[in-house]
Each structure stands twice: as C-alpha cells, then as structure tokens.
C-alpha cells in the first residue's frame, strides 16, 4: 500500500480513528507521518490524538489562527491546553467547551454525568441529574418500542422540569 500523503513510499504507519461514530483510516510512510507531527517514539495517548485532531481542524478555519482563546479565570490558552493535554482550572471547561464537548464524547461516548453528586450541590443539580438519567431511560425504552414506559417517563421528566423552573423562579424572587 502506498502512502496516502506522498503517493510514493510504502505506507508503514496505519492510523485508525473514530470521529463522531465514523471510522477514518490513514496510511502513511514514516517521513510523512513525522511531517504530520506523529511522534513514533513516544506513546500516543487518546487525549493527544484527539487534541491533535482538533488542532488540525482548527488550523483550517482562518479565525483560529488570528485569535488564541484563553480561560478568563486562569489565563490558560487553547494552544497551551493542547500542548499539555491538561486543563488549568474548573472554568476551563466552559472556556474551551467547543473542543471539549467533542473530545469528551469521543472518549466516553457520552456528554452527561450520571454518577455521584456532592452533597453540597443544591436541589437544582440533583433534579437536573435525575432528568438526565430519565432521558437516557426514555431513549432506551423508545428503541425497545416500550411506548407505555416511554410515556410514563416523559410525564415524569415534564414534572421534574417544572419543579426546576419553580426552583429558578424561587431563586429570582429571593434576590
């Protein structure tokens, strides 16, 4: 198999990546792989590969080269985050939401927390999490064509959403 980049050398590096559910394969020769920043001597972590991918996609859009997004709280820049594959502070999750949401989806196949909630979090967080869990169940029941169960879940979700609304209204009344 010839290298897909130079079309001359034999491809010895075969990368397979799954991006948003579609499998992409890339066959390169050693020289072209190195040119594309694939370092064969250091182990590649999923984070690096996915972040690198994000970097490539960003570089094609003109606005990205002009402006390096940074976190307003800790001043970490997007470039820095990609280099280190670690975030600067909790606020970075909002600052870099764009790339992070596709990154976390690719890593975890999900974008919604379902586990433990700290006791210090208020009722609103608790109910929001409950809604997310029920929505997951709802999807599953629709796939299984259990429409009665689905209808039940839908009503429960509606009721919970209303209680979140009333909590929000309560908060605004207080202030």
């Amino acid at each position, binding site marked *: 198999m010839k290298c897909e980049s130079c079309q001359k050398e034999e491809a010895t590096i075969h990368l397979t990546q799954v991006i948003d559910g579609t499998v992409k394969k890339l066959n390169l020769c050693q020289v072209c792989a190195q040119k594309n920043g694939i370092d064969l001597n250091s182990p590649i972590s999923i984070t690096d590969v996915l972040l690198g991918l994000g970097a490539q996609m960003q570089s094609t859009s003109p606005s990205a080269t002009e402006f390096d997004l940074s976190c307003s709280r800790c001043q970490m820049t997007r470039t820095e985050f990609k280099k280190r594959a*670690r975030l600067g502070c*909790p606020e970075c999750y909002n600052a870099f939401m764009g790339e992070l949401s596709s990154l*976390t989806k690719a890593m975890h196949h999900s*974008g*919604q*927390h379902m586990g433990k909630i700290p006791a210090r979090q208020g009722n609103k967080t608790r109910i929001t999490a409950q809604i997310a869990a029920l929505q997951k169940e709802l999807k599953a029941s629709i796939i299984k064509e259990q429409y009665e169960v689905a209808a039940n879940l839908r009503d429960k979700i509606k009721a919970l959403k209303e209680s979140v609304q009333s909590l929000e209204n309560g908060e605004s009344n207080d202030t």
Partner: protein
Amino acid sequence: MTLDDMVGRHGSWLEAGTNEGPVISSRIRLARNIEEYSFSDWASEDDKLLIWERASSVFESMEDSFICWGMGETSSLDKEILFERHLISQELAIKEKGCGVFVSPNECLSIMINEEDHIRIQSLQPGLNLKAAWLAADQMDDQLESELTYAFSPKLGYLTSCPSNVGTGMRASVMLHLPGLVLMEEMDPIINGISKIGLAVRGMWGEGTEAAGNMFQISNQITLGRREDEIIDHLEQIVLELIEHENNARIRLMNDRALVIEDHVARAFGVLSNARMVTSSEALNLLSTLRLGLDLDMINQFSRKEIDTLFIAIQPAHLQKLENKDLKPEERDIVRAEMLRNFMDHATENDGSD
C-alpha cells in the same frame, strides 16, 4: 508508625481475599478538585500550599489517624518505598513542597494531595472486592467534601485536570495474576479485546509499566455517562470472565503439559532456594511460577499471601530500607537472593515440622 515498621510487613489489602487464585487485589481511585483553585499543575506555589493545609486540617479533624508524608520532607528512598507499596504514584514521587499523601494505618486507603488533581483518593481491598473498595472511597470522599467544595458541573460531573477522568472521576481496577493465559500465549488477543470494550490493561505498578511476573491490572477507561455501580459491575463481570479463561488455560496446561509445568515450578523452587544473585525481574517471574505451582497444588510449603508479600519486599527500595543503606544494583541482587533463600529455607523447615 514509620516506614521502617511498614517494610517488614504487608498492607492489609494483601490479605487473602475472595476468588484468590488469579486475583490479587481490587482498587478504586477517585479524582477530586477544590472549586476555588486552579488544578495542581497550573496552580501557584502559594495555592498549592493552601490546598495542602486545607486538606491536612480535614485529616486532623478526623477520628481515624492517618500517617502523612509531605513530598518536600520525604527522602527519595522513602518516596520509592511508598511507590513500591502502591501508596503513591510516580508522578507524586517527583513532586516537592505542597504535595504529599495521607495513608490509613492498614494501608487500605491513601489520599494523594496535589498530584494530577488536588485530591486523589485510593482505596485497596484484597481479592475481587470492588464494592467494598468503592464503599470506603465513597465514605472518605464524603468526609472530605463535608469541609471542601468540589469543582462539579451538573453536566460533566466532577471536573478534573485531564478530561479523560471527568464525570465520576473514578478508575476501578483489579490486579490479576494470569500465568496460564501467558503460557498458552492467549494474552495478546485478550488485551486487544478488552481495549475494545472501554477497558485498559496495564502492568503491576500502573501506567507505563510492563506486566512483570504475569501481573496485569484491568481498569475502566470511560468515566462519564455511567454510574459508579455500573462501571464497577461491568468491570467485575469482565474480570470474572477472565478468571474463568485463566482457570481453563490452567486445566488445559495440566492436561497437555503437566510435566513441563511441574518442571518449571521445580526449577523456580531450585533457583529461589539456591541462587546467589537474583535481579528483580527474574525474582518476579520465579515468584509468579511458584504462585502458579501453589494454585495447582504442586507445592504447599507457603501461602499465596507470603508470596504476594515478597513481590513487594524484593523491590529495590524495600531491600535498601531493610539493609539501611544505599545499594548498587549488583549488591541488591545479592541481598535479594539472600532474602529469597532465607524465605525458602524457612518454608521448607515449616513443611518438615508438619
């Protein structure tokens, strides 16, 4: 309690556990961060010290007494011992002031401060017992959270320095001894298969270490979108399947190559009883063979627990602590061989008296 007291014994998580043959231990790790500070790598020195002080004061207020090692005041040998005992990571060992670990007296709980995340709770249990490990970690988490406000988002869960831990912040893992599958050359396809279902396989001392002594750590990769109990159940189910594969491999080995295995075990016995120099990787492999011989009832002079304890006791830093001086690699090999010979002599004596 000091490290000198610790090196002569084993952590409680090495006691005999359920499904003991191929299973060594179960582990739960939780990553947590305090809302108001930058993550440890990005935080200022002052902030790191503040995080350390705040964590320390929570531990001081607890009923149970924890042993504390600050990385700034701990010698490199002691750091290595903590690492060999699975109480800290390599990443924490190279850190200094403001970073450290709190360890429960039985070594089942260890809480690293300012490693990759502000707080890393680790809970170890003997055998296949992820649920008990989770329970202990969960309780410790609640105790810490009663004093500290965690970085948390309703959508992404516990916010961590690396997005690969976001959500539950939980890594569950089981340490397995799989000599049967290695001897039958069935481990590679299994590692491939496991990585396709969202689990990872690592060596005995975690990330980046090779599987010495046929020891493997299986852990979850996915931390977001599943509840803790779902992650644990899934891992446990796969581990139970692996144990069955391992036991099948052992049966096939005994059917087809019983004499070869017996010879293997007898040779390990011979080398461990007589060798004058043994490297740590050779020792791990010999001990692994001995452990297999024990599981297959070929030998009965010692318990699995004794062998599992040796896996750690023969490590470089442990040997140097016992000898109370720095040893060059060749000197360590001599001390190691002596330790192993003493152990074997003692075991055979015990056997004679029975």
